[in-house]
């Protein structure tokens, strides 16, 4: 992580401070929530974009908090990867908050007194603060704290509607998540014992492929994989993500697992690429492949839209793990074949946007129909054309069809696997894309069915709310059309291991 020292104050702390403040204010005075949402949803994304602009300009920032340099102090470290994640988080969060505005802050008497109405806004802001803190951290322990804050707010979001099913789902999630955190913390403690620091850049300078480092890496990866719902730790995800209210699911599915994945990427590519060995990348790739196939097959078999989307998340998260075996592998005639790392990250971005859009669409279907059974979607294309269109656009990105962000990612991953002679991963990617088409076209087919329209009741859904998922889905498409920009941004501070592969 070669950062340019920048002589500026730790103003990026505002990215954590503003949502945190918003969360606490919302807890104390929920009546001001509407104003808060508007200002928070406006300010933090703007800050994110400013940060991105600074990163593009300065080529990576390293901001010691309070002027104390590591190892004694702790530092924010921002490069293209973290700035990209922060911006995507900002976009999804802003969209979700605007979407949820009428749902949870309705002025109807009694509406705001419900648990969901009271807790949703503060929890979302807490999660936002946690995500930003996580992506800003340059230090393994800060990452731990941010990750815990994220897990706790995510667990609470799952349980927000208070039915016994969702509470059980939340507890299951919490058990996996806490187990994961402890494994991660144990790994961090081991690294500290060996290297005497938790600053990632410093460990990267000191780490070798010694046994303790490898064990620490394995422990942290196992813990984080449980939080990322990597197969076979995925069992908690579908009930948790499908049980939560749709806007919460959008955050849970689109952003939360990306955070722990981000740490895994940081650990292996930035901190200790030389400790990866040959087995670990392949193992992660195999588990990712299992997730793709297993998640997709189960998604095909679901009868409820939200479960389809949740299982699709299990599958889509699997793609992310293919970057471990595929990174590197660039041959002479096609240097861009080393783009698997970038491809994986672009996949994470486009999945975040598309999956959030998809859950918001599912939420609109539920509002209009009162349920989310796929067979009940008949006629939706007529009554909610914008929502169906947004769902389809998000689907295009998930299937990896051009010109979406999902396609760019798939292209980079496929090229890397062909150029590196690792055809097996390419087959998994292709099969995964076809299975995705199977599970996504099923609800769409029902939506286009016209039979039985007359007796079906669709409640009205205001247009502005339908526009939000459309915008998010459109962004995930735009990520492919204008993929040169995210690609270049991700090259800022890109670790060498991303190009040369894990040893």
């Amino acid at each position, binding site marked *: 992580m070669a950062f340019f020292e920048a002589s500026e104050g730790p103003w990026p702390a505002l990215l954590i401070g503003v949502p945190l403040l918003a969360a606490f204010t919302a807890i104390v005075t929920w009546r001001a929530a509407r104003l808060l949402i508007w200002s928070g949803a406006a300010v933090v994304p703007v800050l994110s974009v400013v940060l991105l602009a600074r990163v593009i300009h300065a080529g990576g920032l390293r901001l010691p908090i309070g002027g104390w340099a590591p190892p004694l102090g702790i530092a924010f470290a921002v490069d293209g990867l973290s700035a990209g994640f922060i911006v995507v988080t900002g976009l999804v969060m802003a969209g979700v908050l605007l979407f949820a505005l009428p749902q949870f802050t309705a002025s109807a008497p009694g509406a705001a007194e419900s648990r969901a109405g009271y807790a949703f806004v503060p929890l979302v802001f807490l999660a936002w603060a946690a995500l930003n803190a996580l992506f800003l951290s340059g230090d393994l322990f800060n990452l731990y704290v941010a990750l815990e804050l994220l897990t706790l707010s995510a667990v609470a979001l799952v349980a927000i509607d208070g039915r016994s099913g969702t509470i059980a789902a939340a507890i299951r999630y919490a058990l996996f998540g806490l187990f994961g955190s402890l494994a991660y913390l144990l790994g961090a403690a081991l690294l500290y014992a060996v290297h005497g620091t938790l600053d990632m850049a410093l460990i990267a300078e000191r780490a070798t492929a010694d046994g303790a480092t490898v064990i620490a890496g394995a422990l942290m990866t196992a813990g984080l994989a449980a939080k990322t719902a990597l197969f076979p730790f995925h069992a908690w995800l579908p009930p948790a993500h499908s049980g939560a209210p749709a806007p919460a699911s959008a955050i849970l599915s689109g952003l939360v697992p990306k955070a722990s994945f981000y740490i895994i990427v940081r650990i292996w590519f930035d901190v200790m690429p030389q400790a990866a060995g040959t087995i670990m990348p392949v193992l992660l790739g195999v588990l990712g492949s299992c997730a793709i196939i297993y998640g997709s097959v189960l998604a095909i078999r679901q009868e409820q839209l939200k479960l389809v989307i949740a299982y699709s998340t299990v599958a889509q998260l699997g793609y992310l793990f293919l970057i471990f075996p595929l990174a590197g592998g660039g*041959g002479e*005639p*096609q*240097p*861009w*074949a080393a*783009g698997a790392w*970038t491809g994986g990250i672009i996949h994470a971005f486009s999945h975040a946007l598309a999956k959030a859009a998809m859950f918001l669409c599912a939420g609109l279907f539920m509002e209009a129909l009162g349920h989310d059974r796929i067979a009940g979607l008949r006629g939706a*294309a*007529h009554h909610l*054309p914008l929502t169906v*269109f947004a769902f*389809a656009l998000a689907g*295009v990105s998930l299937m990896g*069809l*051009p*010109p979406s962000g999902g*396609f*760019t990612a798939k*292209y*980079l991953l*496929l*090229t890397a696997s*062909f*150029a590196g002679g690792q055809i097996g991963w*390419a087959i998994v990617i*292709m099969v995964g*894309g*076809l299975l995705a*088409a199977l599970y996504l*076209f099923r609800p769409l*087919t029902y939506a*286009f*069915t*016209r*039979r039985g329209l007359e007796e079906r009741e669709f409640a009205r859904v205001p247009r502005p709310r339908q526009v939000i998922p459309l915008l998010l889905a459109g962004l995930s498409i735009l990520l*492919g*059309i*204008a*993929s*040169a920009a995210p*690609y270049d941004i991700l090259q800022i501070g890109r670790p060498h291991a991303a190009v040369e592969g894990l040893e």
Partner: protein
Amino acid sequence: MSALLPLTILLSSLIPAVVTFFLSERNVYLRNGLSLGGAVVKLVLLAIMLSEVARGAIYELRFDLVPGLFLLLRVDDLSLLFVTLSGFLWLLTTIYAIAYFGKSAHLTRFFGFFSLCVAATTGIALSGTLITFFLFYELLTLSTWPLVVHKGDAKSLRAGRVYLAFTMPGAAALLVAIIWLESAVGPVEFRVAAPLHDLGDWSLRAIFALFILGIGVKSALVPLHGWLPAAMAAPAPVSALLHAVAVVKAGAFGIVRIVYDVFGIGLLQQLTLGLPLAILASITIIYGSIRALQQTDIKRRLAYSTVSQVSYIVLGTALAGPFATIGGLIHLVHQGLMKITLFFCAGIFAERAQITRIDELDGIGPRMPWTALCFSIGAMGMIGIPPIAGFVSKWYLGIGALQAGQHWVIGVLTVSSLLNALYFLPLLYRIWFRTPSDAAQAAAPREYPVALIAPPVLTAIAALATGLLAGSSLSPLSWATLIVERSYLP
């Protein structure tokens, strides 16, 4: 300006598509105006470009994505051949569709996807690289699916499923082929020779097979043709689009691109891939004709006829001599004109006289003279009766086969023409010479409005004219000759 022309021509259908999606059902005039306006603008642009490209101009627009991945829109002689056809037929099909649907529901969606479909076809025609081609090829799949399922009944939904079951794996095969090739030799631009020899012979053969597998789905090569007859459940304008304007043509055009502009004839012969492709095309021609013969439904018979006819293009491409190539390329245009005439007429028969089965055609000729006349011209053209366009194609294909030393192809052409006659002549006989049943006589079908009848009349005239005036410098034949002289002659 020259860089913007390809973009403008793409936008002339893309903008109507996108704007249409946001219109309400009530904005009928604006919606129709958008589609028609886009089509007219496109034709004007095409006229400009045709004259410029004839003088040797090339238009290019490059758009970079990630490294190694860029989009290239490029107008050359071959792309103009296809885009002119689809632009002309788009205008007529739009007029026809407006008249055909009248006031029925969900038209905003229909016209939106319809324009999107044409935008995708334009994109396919203008693509200058494999990846660009793939992008628009997928866009075409996605934008035709809602059209296929447009009616929303069980039959069209099944058709939609079948369509996806063929096209999605096809697209996957195509993508694998592209990436396999490009990961070894770099981005492949059409008409820029890529160092394909870096790959082994067997890898190249496998890649070629994947290409044919991927694109053959759209061009309905046997055994990848199953979706086409199923898609007959869609309304008549969609059939016209699938068979003449966009989908099937995109497949055939893609095969032409792969054979000539990616692999090149020399390499293809070195790998001995031309002959298998020609045999596959011949099998498709014969099989499609035989299946057409077995159908009792007019549209299904026409569908199998398309399966058969489109493979003429593939056959001409695979034979690879100059005359065969010309024959294949002009058939791209000729088949489009004739088949769209037939589908327009079949749609009118179905809408205005409730005729969908062949035995119901008895004696319809005198009562619906315009439609029946156009249908007859289209059918005779398909058989290859001079001076209609189809004859010219077959003539060139025949000479091309002799030139390439593949005498057996003459046999295929003869058998296929015989079969064509066998499955079209009985229709013409019924239309003109049989007396209608009493019930049919009681009904008085009317050919209205003009907008419904004018498109088939125009396409029928065009099919006649391209045959009669094949020697003129403005004919598709001259253009195809120009393409072959410029690009594919050694």
